[in-house]
């Protein structure tokens, strides 16, 4: 991990800090900034600030996210964790009022600069949303949508006429993506049915499969199981852990047990858009540095 200069502590953060050992938030931050995880950093965030108009939604967040692991972002509502997640593939660009300052590097490349191709970025950094949002198309069309639009598979009339149409490739892609998302056994006989006819949990796994079909390296998930029942949630959780073998997964969740179960490292955001602590999941849940984080993960507030 690279050491970088940080801003001197502001009076605002000093005022609210209470810690287990009487340290300030800033000192804690300095400690966990030494946090050295096994493996390579996939995403490096430095001093990220986000404003929605006058609302300072994220305050100077810096963290590195290791590859091929699950990183959980937890915190109370409105703490900026979803905003942070949406910064990682520049989905916040779609919100006109959002102003983003700071640096986010994916594989060492700065994504907040002028010559970034958003299409390529989002192909590499995929996203799954809170509510399942399959397109009102067939299961097959949902999976092949991304690759078709990127020209990775040709299925159009012109491709058929010129013989470039590769039926096998599309079929393979559909099957592979659905198997990865643990959905193949349930929908293999109704690939041409409308995806809106699937159950909520199946729809969410279809969304994950759709995201996998474009062959991403990072998968961002914004509370992927919050709209689902416990059984569907368990399936999604198993799936997330399997995916971590090949992908870098970043999960926002409200559910602390879920974060404890599935994640390798956990970042805790608390009210005001500050990243208060970031460490191995076991450390966060058993021996957090900050009193506020301990209160939060033990359910005393938030």
């Amino acid at each position, binding site marked *: 991990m690279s050491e970088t200069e940080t801003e001197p502590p502001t009076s605002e953060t000093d005022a609210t800090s209470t810690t287990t050992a009487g340290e300030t938030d800033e000192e804690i931050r300095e400690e966990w900034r030494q946090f050295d995880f096994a493996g390579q950093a996939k995403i490096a965030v430095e001093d990220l600030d986000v404003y929605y108009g006058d609302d300072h939604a994220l305050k100077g967040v810096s963290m590195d996210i290791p590859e091929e692991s699950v990183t959980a972002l937890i915190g109370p509502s409105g703490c900026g964790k979803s905003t942070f997640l949406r910064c990682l593939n520049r*989905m916040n660009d779609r919100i006109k009022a959002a102003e983003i300052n700071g640096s986010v590097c994916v594989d060492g490349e700065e994504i907040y600069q002028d010559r970034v191709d958003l*299409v*390529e970025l989002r192909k590499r950094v995929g996203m799954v949303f809170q509510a399942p949002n399959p397109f009102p198309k067939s299961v097959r069309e949902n999976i092949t949508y991304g690759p078709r639009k990127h020209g990775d598979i040709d299925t159009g009339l012109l491709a058929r006429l010129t013989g470039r149409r590769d039926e096998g490739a599309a079929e393979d892609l559909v099957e592979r993506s659905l198997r990865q998302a643990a959905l193949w056994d349930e929908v293999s006989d109704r690939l041409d049915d409308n995806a809106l006819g699937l159950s909520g949990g199946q729809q969410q796994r279809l969304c994950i499969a759709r*995201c996998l079909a474009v062959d991403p390296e990072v998968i961002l998930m914004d509370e992927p199981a919050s709209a689902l029942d416990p059984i569907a949630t368990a399936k999604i959780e198993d799936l997330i852990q399997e995916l971590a073998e090949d992908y870098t997964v970043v999960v926002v969740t409200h559910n602390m047990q879920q974060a404890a179960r599935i994640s390798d490292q956990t970042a805790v955001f608390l009210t005001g858009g500050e990243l208060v602590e970031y460490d191995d999941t076991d450390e966060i849940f058993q021996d957090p540095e900050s009193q506020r984080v301990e209160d939060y993960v033990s359910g005393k507030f938030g």
Partner: protein
Amino acid sequence: MAGATRADVVQEDTSGFEAVAGLTVGLSALLFVLALAALFQLVSISETVAGLGTPMVLGAVLVLAGITVSALGVVSYTGAYQTTARASAGLVAAGLFGLIWFTIGGLVASQTLGLGSPGWQLAALLVGTGGFALTAFPPEDVGSTLPAGALAVFLGGVLVVGAIGPDWSWAPANFPSSQQVTFLPGIVVPMAVLFSGLVVGWAAAKAYGGFGARGRHLGAYMLIYLNAGAIIATLFGLVAFVFMKGFSPMTRGFEVGLGVGPATHLAFALVIPFADIRLFELGYTVVWPVSWPFVMNGVSLFNEYNGIWPAIIGTVWLVIGATVMAVPLGVGSAVFLTEYAERGRFTKVVEVATNALWSTPSIVFGLFGAAFLIPRFTPQPSRSLLAGMLTLGFMLLPLVVITAREAMLAVPDEYRDASAALGVSKWQTIRSVVLPAAMPGIVTGVILGVGRIAGETAPLLLTMTGDTLPDAGSAVKVINNFQLTLSPPFVTNPELTRTTAALPLQLWQIILTGTGQSSGLDDIDAFGWGTALVLLIVVLSFYAIGIATRQYFRSKLKYE
């Protein structure tokens, strides 16, 4: 809850009371339907039923219904049957009944009794106050049935005693003689029965529900159902009327059989453009197995039966031309407004402007076409099919913009997010996700718009007036006449720059200007009704095509 009134949850058996009330509801619905039929002259009020005049029979039924409904109220008041009547029928009902009885009192006092100026007003006020008091002050069961029953008994009685019979008429003296107004029994009798049937039905439905909350609910239902029924019946009556009048002229000389119809020469040729060299030509002649002169012929001296073929073709081409122009433009600007333009003052102004354009009178569009479009198409400014198409297209445009915009705003943002997160560009998202999801709504807009422009006469008068009664040979042949030229505009079509007949225009010309007389039509009126029916069928066919298209797009979006 302290102070809330309580009634038994399980109530006494009131089936006898309900049965009578239900019968009364049925009786008043029957009266309502009969009165509606009489308005459309399906039931003649000058005929007799079992030796009695129709008004007398209607009046007797009305009196019966009025007495029954009053009896229901009184029985409930005496407590013989348990109802949940409230303390009063309410101020709204009281006001309405006061107004009704004020009118009746005034009419009777001034017209029947011949009272002078202060007298009739006083009488009207007295009777009106009586109606108000009778509704407002007694408990609900009496208050909502007695004034209604009395109205039915009074109007029914007037009919039974023959005070208003088939030969009655009334010309109010106060109107200036130049605008002589006469009330005739053909309107007055059905309207009286219709109105009192509605009022009695309302009161009977309340009684059926045992008054109170359930009774008011049923009373409102009765009014709404009867009204909705009347509106739908009127619309169907209108279509049926055109159909009855137009069916026989439209089908004159209609024949089915091998070889009875006209012959059509179908040809296919491969031509090298610009050089006028025909490589080969295939052609054969088909004789239609159907002969339908009104649809297949034009008007000419040699025809056994005359027809309106050129006008049908003209209308079809007008609609096609307008749609081809307006739909891409309209959907395109809707895409810009919803997906690209920053939502703010600009989009608001555009929205208001499109709404205003859609309500602009069609003659204004016609003037625009005449003043702006016509001089730009032909060297010698002249009206043309193309000018008509474009003018109608401009009329259609605002509605397409409005509905396409609404439909695209209704597409959930989740779809756009999902697509963007997959790295798909904005335009591709619009094309493959937003537009397909908005398609049913867009098609609905086009259907509505086409229904309006297909029947427009005013803009065509100014931009495309063609021959009034052309022969079949003068129908436009747009498809066969596209020509490639070496100089701009590269594609020309003389058929588009000449005028043609169109159904609404032709209807207007032959009925109102009487041009048909000089052209040897034997029965202009029948010819007009036939034309109207064909116009109706053409518009309905466009509707059918539109609805089928919408269904197709919907089925692609929905799961079964």
